[in-house]
Structures are given as C-alpha cells and as structure tokens.
C-alpha cells in the first residue's frame, strides 16, 4: 500500500451531497463534517427542527434518516449522503395537519414550541414501530426529548391520543 491511504478531505473544503428530504431531492455543497441539522436549517431552509444543545441532549433536532430517529446535530453530512430524511415539514398535507400534530393541538401539548418538532418526530418513530404504546413505553420513547414548559403530561397524553386516533378516528377524545 502506498503512503497515501485514501483521499483526505481537507478542512473546510466543500463536497457535493445529494439526499431526499420529505421526498424532494436536495443537492448541497457542504463541509463533510458539518452536521445534518446545520445543513437542513441553513442550506435547505428547513427551520422546523431546532438547535437546542447541539450535543444530542435535548432532542429538539430529531429527524428520521432512512426511517430511524436520530438527532440531526449528531450526524455529519458524510453520513447523510444519499439518505432519505424526514423532517417535521413533511407531516402536514397543505393545511391538513398530520394526526400526531392534531393530537398535540388537541391536548395543548405545546407551549413555546421549541421542543415540539422533535417531540412529534420521536412520536412518529414510536408509532411506526409500536402503534399501541403503553404510557410507560411513551415515556421511554420520549426520554431523549426535553421540554421546559409543559411538564410533559400533555405531551404524553397527546402521543396516546394520536395512537388511539390512528386506530379509531371516530372515537377520538382527549385523554384525561
């Protein structure tokens, strides 16, 4: 083997990345170690996800990458290339809110709104793998998402209501 191992990408140099966000293809130039969250917000203009701590502690930047929930602040662009990304912007159909968003509205599960996009993406990931979670399972699923306003109870209610609505939309009613 030669001394040159593989190409070293020098700091600050931009690379071309291509990926899907909510089904739409994005082509961006970015440093390969810039976080996906930074790119989504600053280069793609998708500001639904929030930068809270930028160290994986708050969950406000949660998105799905190829269906898996991840904090967008933790994923460098080099790991996001050619992936399919889902963000909060992809949930509503025009003016029609997604059922999880409806449930959050119904249960007053949002106050300042900073955590909401991450909470809803974590809820979406939960309900995709477990459509009828128990309250305890909801707590586990949301344990990576911090809310400083609500005290969490209305958020947990909203997740349970969203799950119930998905099964029997006609019987939907807020949890007590």
């Amino acid at each position, binding site marked *: *083997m030669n001394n040159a191992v*593989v190409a070293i990408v*020098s*700091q600050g140099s931009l690379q071309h990345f291509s990926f899907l966000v909510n089904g739409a293809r994005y082509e961006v130039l970015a440093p390969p170690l810039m976080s996906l969250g930074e790119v989504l917000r600053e280069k793609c203009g998708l500001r639904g996800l929030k930068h809270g701590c930028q160290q*994986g502690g708050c*969950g406000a930047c949660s998105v799905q990458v190829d269906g898996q*929930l991840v904090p967008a602040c*933790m994923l460098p662009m080099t790991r996001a290339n050619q992936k399919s990304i889902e963000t909060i912007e992809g949930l509503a159909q025009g003016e029609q809110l997604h059922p999880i968003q409806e449930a959050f509205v119904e249960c007053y599960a949002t106050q300042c709104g900073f955590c909401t996009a991450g909470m809803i993406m974590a809820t979406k990931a939960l309900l995709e793998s477990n459509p009828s979670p128990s309250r305890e399972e909801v707590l586990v699923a*949301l344990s990576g998402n911090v809310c400083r306003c609500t005290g969490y109870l209305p958020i947990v209610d909203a997740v349970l209501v969203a799950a119930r609505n998905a099964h029997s939309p006609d019987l939907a009613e807020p949890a007590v």
Partner: protein
Amino acid sequence: MSFPDLVIPETVDQAVEALSLPHRQALIFGGGTLVQPFITLGTDVHDLVIDLDHLALDQVVFENGQVSCGAMVRLAQLAQALPQDYIQAAVASIAGPAIRNLATVGGNLFAKPPYGDLATLLLALDAEVELASSEGTRRISLNDFYLMRDNAEASSTNGVLVTGVRFSADSRRKVVFRKMARKQLNAGAMVTVALSLRLNGGIVADARLALGGVDHRPIRAPSAERVLTGSNLSDEVIESAAQAALQDCRPRTDAYASAWYRGRMIPVQVRRALNSLTPQ
C-alpha cells in the same frame, strides 16, 4: 467555521495507517455521539477525523453462547440482537432512543464517566477487545486494555484501533446490571454496578464486579471480588464486599453527584446488586 480534515478508510489497514500518520492528531469517528458536538463547536484539538463507517464493523453474531460484536454495532442494534436482560437493562439505561440509534458499542468503551455503562457491563462479562495496529490484530481482555491505556505512555496507544468486542453470554452465570442515576431514563450514572457470579452449590466459585461512574473510567473492583470468591453470600459477606468495593474506587464530583455522595452510594448499590441474587 473550521473542521478537522476527514479520511474515510475502506479497510482496517488503511484506518490503522491513517491513525499513525506523523504530525497528525487523529480522532476516531464511530457513531459520532461523543465527538460530533466538539467538531460542531470547533473546540476539538484533533486535526484528522477517521470515519469508520466503511469498515463493515457493524455485525453482531450470537452463537453457542458466544457474542462477537463489531465496534460499529449501534447500541439499539445490540439490544435487538441479544435478549439477555442485563444487555437490555444496560442499553436502555443509556441516553434516549435517538442516541442509541447512533452510539456504538466500540465508542462506549471510550465514553468518560458518568457515561460508559455498557463498558461497565462488558468489564463484568470479562469481554475481550479486538485490536488492530500496524503490528497486526490481537485480542486482549477489556480490563487489560484499560490498564494498558492507564499505564502506557500516550504515544504507545496511538495507532491502535478497537475493531470489536467478544464476550460469553453464559447462561449459568448470574449477571446483574444496576444503574443509579438522577432520573430513571436518560441520565449519567451516579453509580453503575455490573456483577457476574458463578455459583456452585451456594458458594461463589468466581466473581466479577465492575463499577461505573466512580473513577476516571469503568473499573473492576478486585477487593470486593476477593471477599466474594469462595463465600456463601451471607449478609456479613455482602456487607463486607460492599465496603471493600469502596477501596477500589476514586469517585469524582460532577454535575450529577459529588465525590462524597458517590462514596456513600457505592456500598449501597453493591449491596443491592448482591442482595438481588439472594432470596430475601
């Protein structure tokens, strides 16, 4: 914003070579949960990031009671592959689901307290680490790996890459994992206890006790292990082992707990782990 240089090796040999490049401060990028925040903040002092993503170190195999796990296996993936309640408990105690989708088994060995709960369990399971360096590959116990890092000149651990871990999931051993933290979910450890015992007719034939959050890295507690080995796990033995464990720790103060408080809690948590094995 400035970033370190990046290399994405296609083989372990290339990764080892990149690690040993002269005049470079290389940083290994596994899941990224430990290092990406520092890269984003621009406070990291390394000037070369080695991304392990293309090395195919992401397989976990569980056969005949033996587990072989690549360094890049994600924590969530490990929990899906292995049903043992102590693996489930250790993984569930770490961060939240999104982080567990990224954080790797190999990376957890390098997580500084109050993190590194899986590494604490792996110490109690007497796991081996698979190492690659310019001299080839070898396997040593995780405990020896930590001792090597403690004792060696910093330069002698340069150029060494952890490529995987192996351990025995021997169903004849009693294994307990306990983590004491401020919250039930998603918090660093105040005291983590991982215990693996082999009992023979009520007598402890072999004891491995590992503690996390109580020193500069996850540690074994040999003083307590000596008390336990050959004993009958009576209340007196358990109390004595709990106190002995304290001698093996140098607890520190952090945002979760003071060194003093950790010192008070170490015997309590060791006692509770041992009591969970004996009918009350």
